[in-house]
């Protein structure tokens, strides 16, 4: 049995402007010790999915409207809050995007780390302190004994993220969720922090969900990738397969919108035109249809299911042999994926029903 099994998760936000359809039936699994990337642009529901798993959705607006989240045999959706609190930090830990604001400014690193450890383990202050020093040394903070009494503002951004990693790993959780852990960091630091994260989770056998909008970040880090768009998983495959044969127009678009250094002839970057759909409306048809170059008429009215690329393949939800699943009515062929646009003779993307491309209402910055 997988460590984490999310099935048909639906998350909505009830706001004054109406209901936000943040996550619309997402299913995925994470094996113990596995690294999973969750990729998509801002507002696609990747963070919300994980906040829902942790049951930390912003109250009172955020609700899990449906689906199950089974972690280690426990249904987290119905688990009492007190048990959930026990579980947070001990079994599932989280790292946030901005290390500048995720540490309490008026408490020393020592106070925060000792507190984390003692919240879940019956240890003395001295033992917890020793463990904190160990952890800081592990994440590569020089002179950890003296740095323990420092405040967050006395660390640089990269150092703070290291402290956050140390705190998240303090209780040897089974699952770690890293939400854009390097987005706020300097490029030179990003690689160091990612490498550290990978090394430490591998050593401890901790499963990792890495949320990012940067395909470059997941490329070297994860075993599998879920690509999310507008609250749906549109494609999932092992990292190798996904990069070798992207089969959803959105994934193709993502891959063509990032610069690559290993190309012999640098090709031009192809942006994905348009903006994500307004999630205040219940989704009709394929959410990517308005921006898709491959769209058929059916895409406007029917949202394709996430099905195996090879219909005869054995279904595996996780692990190195996970099945490549795609939700698309008109998959780009490998040649088209390489070119980044449809190559079929005379193919024109189907016009929207009614003939006019619907003007999208300006999207509010919904939770990423």
């Amino acid at each position, binding site marked *: 049995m997988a460590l984490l099994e999310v099935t048909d998760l639906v998350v909505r936000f009830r706001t004054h402007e109406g209901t936000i359809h943040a996550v619309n039936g997402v299913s995925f699994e994470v094996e113990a010790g596995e690294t999973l990337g969750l990729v998509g642009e801002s507002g696609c529901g990747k963070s919300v999915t994980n906040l829902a798993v942790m049951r930390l959705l912003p109250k009172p607006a955020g609700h899990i409207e449906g689906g199950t989240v089974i972690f280690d045999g426990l249904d987290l959706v119905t688990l009492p809050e007190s048990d959930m*609190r026990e579980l947070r930090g001990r079994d599932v830990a989280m790292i946030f995007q901005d290390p500048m604001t995720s*540490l*309490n400014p008026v408490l020393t690193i020592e106070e925060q780390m000792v*507190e984390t450890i003692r919240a879940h383990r019956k240890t003395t202050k001295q033992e917890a302190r020793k463990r904190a020093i160990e952890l800081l040394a592990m994440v590569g903070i020089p002179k950890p004994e003296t740095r323990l009494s420092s*405040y967050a503002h006395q660390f640089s951004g990269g150092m703070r993220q290291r402290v956050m990693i140390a705190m998240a790993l303090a209780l040897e959780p089974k699952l770690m969720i890293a939400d854009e852990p390097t987005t706020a960091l300097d490029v030179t630091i990003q690689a160091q922090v990612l490498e550290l994260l990978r090394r430490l989770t591998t050593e401890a056998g901790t499963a990792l969900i890495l949320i990012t909008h940067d395909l470059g970040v997941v490329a070297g880090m994860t075993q599998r990738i879920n690509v999310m768009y507008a609250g749906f998983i549109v494609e999932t495959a092992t990292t190798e397969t996904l990069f070798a044969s992207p089969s959803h127009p959105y994934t193709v678009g993502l891959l063509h919108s990032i610069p690559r250094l290993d190309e012999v002839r640098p090709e031009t970057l192809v942006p994905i035109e348009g903006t994500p759909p307004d999630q205040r409306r219940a989704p009709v048809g394929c959410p990517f249809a308005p921006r898709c170059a491959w769209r058929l008429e059916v895409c406007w009215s029917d949202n394709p299911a996430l099905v195996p690329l090879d219909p005869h393949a054995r279904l595996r939800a996780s692990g190195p042999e996970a099945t490549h699943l795609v939700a698309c009515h008109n998959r780009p062929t490998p040649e088209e994926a390489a070119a980044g646009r449809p190559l079929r003779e005379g193919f024109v993307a189907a016009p929207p029903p009614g003939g006019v491309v619907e003007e999208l209402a300006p999207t509010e910055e919904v939770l990423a």
Partner: protein
Amino acid sequence: MTAPTVTVTAPTAARASRGLWGDAARRLLRNRPAIVGLICIAIFISAAILAPVIAPYGPLAGTLAERYQPPSLQHLMGTDTQGRDEFTRVLYGAQVSLQVGVIAVFLALFMGGVIGAIAGGLGGKIDAVLMRIVDVLLAIPGILLAIGIIAWLDRGMLQLMLAIAITYVPVFARLLRGSLLALREADYVLAARSIGASRVRILLRHMLPNALTPLIVSATLVLATAIIDIAGLGFLGLGPPDPRTAEWGTMLTDARKFLELAPWLVYFPGLAIVISAIGFNLVGDGLRESLDPRLRR
């Protein structure tokens, strides 16, 4: 900000941190206006405590024959309408101001703090009800509210403290609630929740200490205003019940009618009010700057 390089350590890191309060004290002592304020407060507090020791006469001792004497070596600040030594009475006046002011502010801080913590920590309907009550209190001008409370409860030291305290309850309640609401959305509160900290723990350990700084600063500033309020109420005849008590505002009222004859009777109590109020104001501003660990110089 520090350069985001791994090897660089912040300059302050080399020196061992002495905790929030140690650091704050060090920063406060480097702030020149705050030093001036501290000196003012030191004069004020030592006057209050040492009044029985340094005062050359008793606060009520004096004969009518000796009244309206201008400042001299025998009477540093002259004598008042009853022939009592003005210097002695200014010293004893500090006692009343300090005692009433400090107790009133602590009372207000406590009541306002509890209301603000409940409202900001729990939210929802409780928050709405509490804040409407606070709004009503806030709608009434402070000194008018204090006058009303004394009129209702009768004159007395305890009533005086209570009246001033209630005037400032809304200030603290709103302040704490506002900070707590803002902190609820703070990343480190989410981070604390993500490691399994309980609601009470998050409120007491993560949110309150962060919300405390503005509260301490404003308590110091309110103390300055409270001293003026005490004098104001005294001036209006609503001060201590015994009219002979040396209280700065009451002393001003007594001297008012003899302004041309004995102007020093207005200068010295007035100066005492100004010095103590300015002292707390300067220290309050200094604290605001020094208690924020993010403000580095």
